[in-house]
């Protein structure tokens, strides 16, 4: 009786949790561009100056500045990632003027040092005194002054030019701009003749670092070339998603009906484990902030197939043990034990395949492999451990006494 209560409580609590949380979770699943519309561009970056070297840091900085630009253009949740040593992948959803965004994105980040020209409003500067390439690459760094305040040390290539500018602008502002965004407007405190300067102000350590990085990036601007681009209309993406989800639901219902019709009460348990498996997968998507794309759906289907397979293997094995004349309990025990090994070997082999794909693949292949791995691990937990435990609990509680409840006819059982 205690076992039966344990079984009922487990099932009820889990059903409740799934029923309550599922709508909220589904809303939070991040959809890929192929499902919600938008466009994706893969850039290849190379230094503007021939012969200069592309560093990991400058690629990272360029990616960050792309993201800032995309944000500035008012797009929703731009996604910018670096790939390999020289690539940046940009994903933007919900853009109305695609051509404009593309053009803006491709322009290299321009770092300028500017002074106030006549007619400039207070606090804005338009006369360009120096550009990014006037600075020594990678020389900007954060130091601390006597008061332990963070300052930014910079180095210029042309001492004389810098001396002339600082002389002319002594006591005035020399503002730092990235594109049209003002980063800082320090005042020139002295005529600087040795080609180095330190910029002080009310910087925190983080903001000082940020500025130093930006100057270094400006000193080595990267040229971006579009290597691949894909755009999906918002309605087209939505349509794909709706159709795919509907296809998935119809397929799932048929699979569940099949499982229950075929294996009766154990089939109901297997279906429950399958639902739990799917729910956990959605939860992982939300918690780990994965993006659901078409390859993800493919991995999802394969995972469901393998999860169903695990249940079929278990139940077929239990039936087989029963037909050989074993009691219900020992059939279930033996069936669980043997099928566990079978399913583990099959799953581990598939995980190996997926792990190699994840390690060596790129883009879609990587995403596919990751979701497959997650799903197989979840499947082992739900469709092996959990489903086996539930079935054993039910058998021990005395609810499953007859072979008929497993879909086995008495006539098929051979005398032991």
């Amino acid at each position, binding site marked *: 009786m205690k076992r039966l209560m344990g079984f009922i409580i487990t099932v009820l609590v889990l059903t409740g949790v799934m029923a309550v949380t599922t709508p909220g979770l589904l809303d939070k699943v991040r959809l890929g561009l192929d499902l919600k519309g938008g466009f994706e561009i893969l850039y290849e970056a190379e230094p503007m100056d021939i012969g200069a070297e592309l560093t990991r840091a400058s690629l990272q900085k360029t990616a960050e500045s792309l993201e800032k630009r995309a944000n500035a253009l008012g797009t929703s949740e731009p996604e910018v990632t670096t790939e390999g040593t020289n690539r940046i992948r940009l994903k933007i959803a919900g853009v109305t003027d695609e051509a404009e965004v593309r053009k803006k994105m491709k322009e290299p980040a321009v770092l300028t040092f500017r002074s106030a020209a006549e007619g400039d409003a207070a606090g804005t500067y338009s006369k360009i005194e120096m550009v990014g390439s006037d600075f020594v690459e990678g020389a900007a760094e954060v130091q601390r002054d006597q008061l332990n305040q963070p300052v930014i040390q910079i180095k210029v290539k042309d001492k004389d030019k810098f001396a002339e500018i600082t002389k002319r602008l002594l006591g005035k502002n020399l503002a730092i701009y990235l594109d049209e965004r003002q980063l800082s407007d320090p005042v020139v405190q002295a005529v600087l003749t040795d080609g180095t300067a330190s910029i002080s102000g009310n910087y925190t350590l983080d903001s000082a670092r940020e500025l130093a990085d930006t100057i270094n990036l400006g000193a080595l601007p990267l040229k971006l070339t579009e290597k691949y681009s894909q755009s999906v209309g918002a309605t087209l993406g939505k349509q794909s998603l709706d159709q795919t989800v509907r*296809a998935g639901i119809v397929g799932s219902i048929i699979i569940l009906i*099949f499982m229950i019709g075929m294996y009766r009460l154990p089939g109901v348990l297997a279906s429950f484990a399958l639902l739990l498996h799917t729910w956990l997968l959605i939860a992982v998507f939300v918690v780990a902030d994965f993006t659901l794309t078409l390859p993800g759906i493919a991995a999802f289907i394969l995972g*469901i197939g393998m999860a169903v*397979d695990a249940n079929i293997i278990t139940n077929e094995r239990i039936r087989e043990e029963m037909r050989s004349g074993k009691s219900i309990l020992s059939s279930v025990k033996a069936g669980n034990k043997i099928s566990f090994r079978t399913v583990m070997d099959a799953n581990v*082999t598939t995980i190996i395949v997926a792990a190699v794909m994840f390690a060596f693949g790129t883009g879609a292949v990587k995403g596919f492999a990751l979701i497959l791995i997650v799903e197989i691990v979840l499947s082992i937990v739900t469709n092996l451990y959990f489903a086996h435990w539930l079935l054993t609990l039910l058998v021990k509680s005395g609810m499953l006494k007859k072979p008929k409840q497993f879909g086995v006819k008495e006539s098929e059982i051979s005398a032991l």
Partner: protein
Amino acid sequence: MRFKKELDFVHLSKYFFIFSIVLTILGVLFLAIFGLNYSVDFKAGSNVDVSLSKNITTEQLQPALDSLNLSHEPSITLGENRVNIRYDEVLDDTQSQALQAEITKLDDQASFEINTVDTEMAKELARNAIYSVLLASIGIIIYVSIRFEWRFALAAIVALLHDAFMVVSIFSIFRLEVDLTFIVAVLTIIGYSINDTIVIFDRIRENLRFGKQKTYEDLKALVNKSVAQTLMRSLYTAFTVFIAAFFLLVLGGESIKMFSLAMVIGLLFGAYSSIFIASPLWLLLKKRQKPSTKSAPAKA
């Protein structure tokens, strides 16, 4: 036993070996002669999307296209207030501006989106996927050799490559379009194929533990028995996975049609190869280890 008449899978597999070999040769021939019907993902060129204020016909558009004096004809797809022009060559700036000017003459409210497609990415993804599969095969060989034995590993790899190649062949023979999602479909098929094969091998391994198999006949009976014992499971699993892929094909969107089709074909091959290719192949390999009854020296 459930089967009144035992099916001789090993014997049947002879015909299926022939079937698979014929299909493989056909596939190689088609691939060598016609190649694959690649979608735009794999072809370099310029893609011009024009949204218009009215519908226009190909006849209206033709003079505008002719005026560019390009060496090749683009393919044109007309839509509701839209037209898509796809060039197999990359248009340079002057050409695309001339094209825009010409079409603007037809409709002064036309707006353009010109994408240049670089095939390098798609090709790299495909190449990368192939390398990954080959590397994964090494992983399978190592794991299966440890848990089972190398003969199982080899047979499983052959079945897996067979399934992947069959789908590629079918797509080549029937000129079905191959896009980027096709790569993912083939990877899915490989995942399914290895899972399906290992389950049957597990049963062979289990049966090997009971009793000694002295002759080829013993081994053959053992393979037949193992396949028969797992047959219901194989059919049920194939059925359920097939259902999932089939509904994706029928109800899923246009954009994943080819993907779903590749899955449906591949899953059927995956189930087929585990029974009729992988298991008999293991037997063939194992036979070399065990002397067969016929070749065994006759007793005096």
